[in-house]
């Protein structure tokens, strides 16, 4: 490490951007594999709940272990040969290896973790809001059509008397006022039922405690296995744990069904 490297953006590009890419894509892969694991578990057709859960944990944990630790173990134990030909008894090589473990680790516990929080907490909120606005629009359309019928009923007398004045309403006049009244009533009942808060609540996603449990275990493993390499890891994990406590609380209270 010299000052020359530190000031070169390309150096930082190789050092930071690569683990960053990995850190961002791993939660996405995890999410996909979670679906695959649940599908496989359903396919395997376990008789009891505990059996089902154990095999799901086994699958998901094996995958996550590879996800989050492969890079770190790779740098810690394997990759130093690129520098081995230099004759400094491998000192530079190990120093570089440690630097790479450290950058990967710091990315995993900071940016990758925050991205995960965003993906599991705020993204569902955004999706939910989007769905809600679509629903609002359809309510609005229904309300508009009901108001139209109401207006027509009110002015039915005039419509009947002077049909030549309202050429657009010709078709509407074929309905009897009783039918229109019935339609209006049913429409209002439907609207009030469809706008019931229960619909909003049941469209929220379900809480999955397994993913959170596994993440807590991973965080603990980072501290025990890798804080020797990067002594500032516990500080990051402490902040993450405190953050997780409140963010998961928020997630449970506001963005998940019970």
């Amino acid at each position, binding site marked *: 490490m010299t000052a020359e490297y530190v000031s070169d953006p390309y150096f930082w590009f190789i050092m930071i951007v690569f683990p960053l890419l990995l850190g961002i894509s791993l939660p996405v892969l995890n999410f996909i594999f979670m679906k695959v694991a649940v599908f496989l578990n359903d396919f395997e057709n376990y008789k009891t709940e505990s059996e089902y859960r154990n095999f799901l944990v086994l699958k998901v944990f094996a995958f996550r272990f590879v996800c989050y630790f*492969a890079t770190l173990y790779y740098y810690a134990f394997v990759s130093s040969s690129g520098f081995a030909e230099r004759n400094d008894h491998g000192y530079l090589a190990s120093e570089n290896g440690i630097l790479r473990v450290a950058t990967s680790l710091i990315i995993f516990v900071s940016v990758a973790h925050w991205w995960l929080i965003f993906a599991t907490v705020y993204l569902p909120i955004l999706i939910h809001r989007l769905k809600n606005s679509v629903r609002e629009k359809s309510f609005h359309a229904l309300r508009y059509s009901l108001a139209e019928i109401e207006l027509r009923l009110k002015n039915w007398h005039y419509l009947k008397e002077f049909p030549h004045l309202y050429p657009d309403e010709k078709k509407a006049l074929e309905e009897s006022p009783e039918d229109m009244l019935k339609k209006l009533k049913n429409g209002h009942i439907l609207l009030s*039922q469809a706008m019931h808060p229960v619909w909003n609540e049941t469209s929220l996603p379900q809480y999955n405690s397994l993913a959170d449990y596994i993440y807590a275990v991973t965080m603990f493993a980072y*501290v025990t296995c890798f804080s020797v390499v990067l002594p500032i890891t516990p500080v990051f994990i*402490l902040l993450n*744990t405190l953050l997780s406590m409140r963010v998961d609380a928020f997630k449970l209270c506001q963005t998940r069904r019970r």
Partner: protein
Amino acid sequence: MRQAGLETQRIYGLDRSKVILVVRCPEDRLQDVAEVIRLRLRTKDGLNLPKYLPFRETHAGIFQPSNEISDNPLSHSLFRSNDRQYIINFILHSQVNDTGAQLGQRSKLGRHIQAHVPLHNYERLNILYKTWVLFWHYENWIGRDGRSMSSDRSVDYEVDSKAPPPNTFYRFFRGVFYQPLDSIEQYYGSNVAFYFAWLQHCAVYLVPLSIIGFFVFIAQLNANSWDHWSRIPFSFIVMLWSFLTMVSWNKRAKVLAHRWGTLNYEEEETTRPQFKGSYKRVPNPANPAESIFVRDPITNELVFNNPWWKRALTFSIGILVTLGVTLGLLVMILIFNANRDILIARYFDEENEDGNTFTWDFSAKVIGRTTTGVFAFLSFYFAFEI
């Protein structure tokens, strides 16, 4: 469902193809079923009885009523909401002959049910939200300190209720380590509460380690080298720390389990509703051309399961796919890192003119180019897994 003693309300969706049925169970019906399934409830304190006993309707007086706030202030239910959910679920899934609604997954009508969703109790949820997420608010600290926030029972901690609440700074930095765990357990169940209890436990134990770690890190930065002497004692401290954390968590988990009545709790092994199986048959010993159903020798019920070869087949397919996907991911990560290594190596190699050219190699051979030790790594990985 009405025949099964449940009260229902029907709510149509906008396109009329989906319907929500809001189900409520009256208290006497809850008590009936609770007695049948021998639900274990908490008894009143000071009666010299075991803490938890199976429910009996004739002895309803000895059980502690739940102090939950409900939407209906007149109802004083003996059952907590997760008990109620359990009972309603039981009624929905049991047979019509057993006064149930017979809406399990295998029944004719039950197949059309998309999901069972317990509804939030907003009054309680809002209280929980205020004390849990907005923990630093002034009103949460009137008459209590941070320690008592993690408990609902005031008898557990002696608190000077007349002392004025501390300032915001103190409230935030002390309160951040505490959560209303009892209320969480009551509302969401022990599974969720244990997760948050673990986070809290971990956070408290991480404080000293992160202070030490911070100083070691500063020392390393000052020395401009990773190889500072403090790293050796620090690694011992980390080892000790993880041991201490696990041991104390074991203790804490037992205390919490005792408190929430889940100590030595064993899940009842009932068949999952999604389980697809068939009633087991064997050839009739009297007439080998026919087959007869097998009965369990103990319960005398028909044996309902999956043949062993089917289980073995699906299990092996599942494991193979999992292993394949996991190994595939491992190779992908290794290729990715190996490419990064090549780029770095070329960057540091000053004699090479094109040090900054960006190339990318997608073949698995790239792993071998940077390192011959990849097999050592793989064997290490498997040793760890096993």
